[in-house]
């Protein structure tokens, strides 16, 4: 049985390692094989970008060699997939190799698409790539006060990042002693300050406490120098615009017509691509209406690992993914809280504590053990 994992980010790596552990006997005997194809030989801890943008982490801390994170039984190649031929169970890579599989797992992730909104890329700071996070930090460090707007596009990865960047900005300006010279204004596309109602209920009073103003039902339509204009015909003026751009799936998914916007239609419980029994999708690449988060990819990978191993060993999957997501929320002032939810249970965030902030700080360094499938 040949299992092909496309994508060596959070989801693909955790899944491949999980499978390599579960199928160690089959891999040793040669009756099964796991191949991973990815676009890079480096693995980035993406949540660290948020910290880089406010000078709390350095870029060198974000990376490890992908190979060092994988079980030695996984056959890893940096050779991105360009064509998916699902009817014939094969993919073609950039180098021109045609690779057949019995089971295919797609975890190619998502990317910010600031270009989708006229003027956004040119007039805003972002933190979704290393270059953008570093550029944002440089801009912040020269900022001496004025109007700062945080604006969010949908869908986007990391559901908590609009809130977290706002709390981090407050901390940053306070630390530099210029908070009294800053007017911080937060906008959000739906009718409350966060997509998850309990999180919104917790966050709005926190904003009030700090004097952060907010406007909801604000969907960015266009950005011109100094002004962001919404679909709802309102606008916000800024000296500094920080954005969480709307996201798309990867181009290769769109080019192969696997799903609209690069997001593949996926069964919410079994995580197979709709209409395909031997193609599974995880992480940001699914079209599931749940958070595009590392923890989502992690919990999906664990469910899938168990199911694919069961398919190899018994011919049938054994469990459903329950929609579990766990997100820390950095709340500024050295404190954090978290939101945990699944398909049936909404989150219930509690008052932030320093213990949870330390937990998150430690987790930022322990992520690599998590990618290896240890924690």
């Amino acid at each position: 049985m040949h299992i092909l994992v496309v994508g060596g980010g959070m989801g693909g790596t955790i899944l491949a390692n999980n499978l390599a552990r579960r199928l160690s006997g089959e891999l040793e005997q040669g009756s099964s094989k796991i191949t991973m194809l990815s676009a890079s030989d480096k693995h980035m801890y993406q949540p660290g970008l948020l910290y880089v943008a406010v000078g709390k982490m350095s870029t060198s801390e974000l990376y490890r060699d992908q190979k060092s994170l994988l079980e030695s039984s996984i056959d890893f190649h940096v050779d991105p997939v360009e064509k998916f031929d699902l009817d014939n169970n094969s993919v073609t890579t950039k180098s021109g190799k045609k690779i057949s599989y019995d089971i295919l797992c797609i975890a190619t992730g998502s990317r910010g698409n600031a270009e989708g909104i006229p003027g956004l890329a040119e007039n805003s700071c972002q933190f979704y790539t290393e270059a953008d996070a570093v550029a944002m930090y440089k801009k912040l460090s020269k900022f001496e006060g004025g109007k700062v707007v945080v604006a969010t596009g949908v869908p986007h990865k990391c559901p908590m990042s609009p809130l977290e960047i706002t709390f981090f900005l407050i901390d940053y300006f306070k630390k530099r002693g210029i908070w009294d010279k800053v007017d911080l204004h937060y906008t959000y596309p739906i009718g409350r300050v966060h997509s998850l109602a309990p999180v919104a209920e917790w966050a709005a009073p926190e904003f009030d406490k700090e004097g952060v103003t907010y406007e909801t039902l604000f969907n960015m339509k266009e950005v011109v120098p100094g002004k962001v204009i919404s679909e709802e015909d309102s606008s916000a003026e800024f000296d500094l615009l920080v954005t969480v751009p709307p996201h798309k799936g990867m181009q290769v998914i769109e080019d192969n017509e696997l799903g609209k916007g690069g997001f593949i239609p996926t069964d919410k419980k079994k995580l197979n691509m709709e209409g395909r029994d031997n193609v599974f999708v995880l992480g940001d690449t699914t079209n599931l209406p749940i958070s595009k988060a590392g923890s989502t990819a992690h919990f999906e990978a664990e469910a899938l690992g168990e199911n694919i191993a069961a398919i190899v060993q018994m011919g049938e999957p054994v469990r459903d993914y329950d929609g579990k997501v766990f997100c820390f929320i950095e709340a500024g002032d050295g404190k954090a809280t978290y939101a945990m939810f699944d398909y049936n249970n909404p989150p219930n965030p509690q008052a932030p504590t320093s213990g949870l902030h330390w937990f998150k700080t430690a987790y930022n360094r322990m992520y690599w053990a998590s990618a290896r499938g240890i924690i």
Partner: protein
Amino acid sequence: MSSEITIQQQVDRFMQGAGDALTDDTVARLGFMMNELLIIADRVTRNKNIMKLLEMSETKDFAKMLDAMSVAFESYKESPATSGGIGGMLKVMSDPNVQGSLKLLGNFSKELNK
């Protein structure tokens, strides 16, 4: 008012003290160390060869081998340089301990070549 403090208060004070003493940097370093230790422990415990080596290390033979190595090393350091030449070689070869050692090495290389 009693000057005794309850266990809960002691725990709270301890936690507050620990909290005040910690910095983000300390926690990050501890996290980094935990990460590395977990990865090493995972590698070691799932590596059959290392586990076998650990098992072997508990046997008497293994201890004897380490002792023998250290004795041999010491006596090598202390022994005068050999005179060399065919005569010197014959003298060394006629030592029954040397013959036994060569036999052991021979068996080892036979196993490796299997």
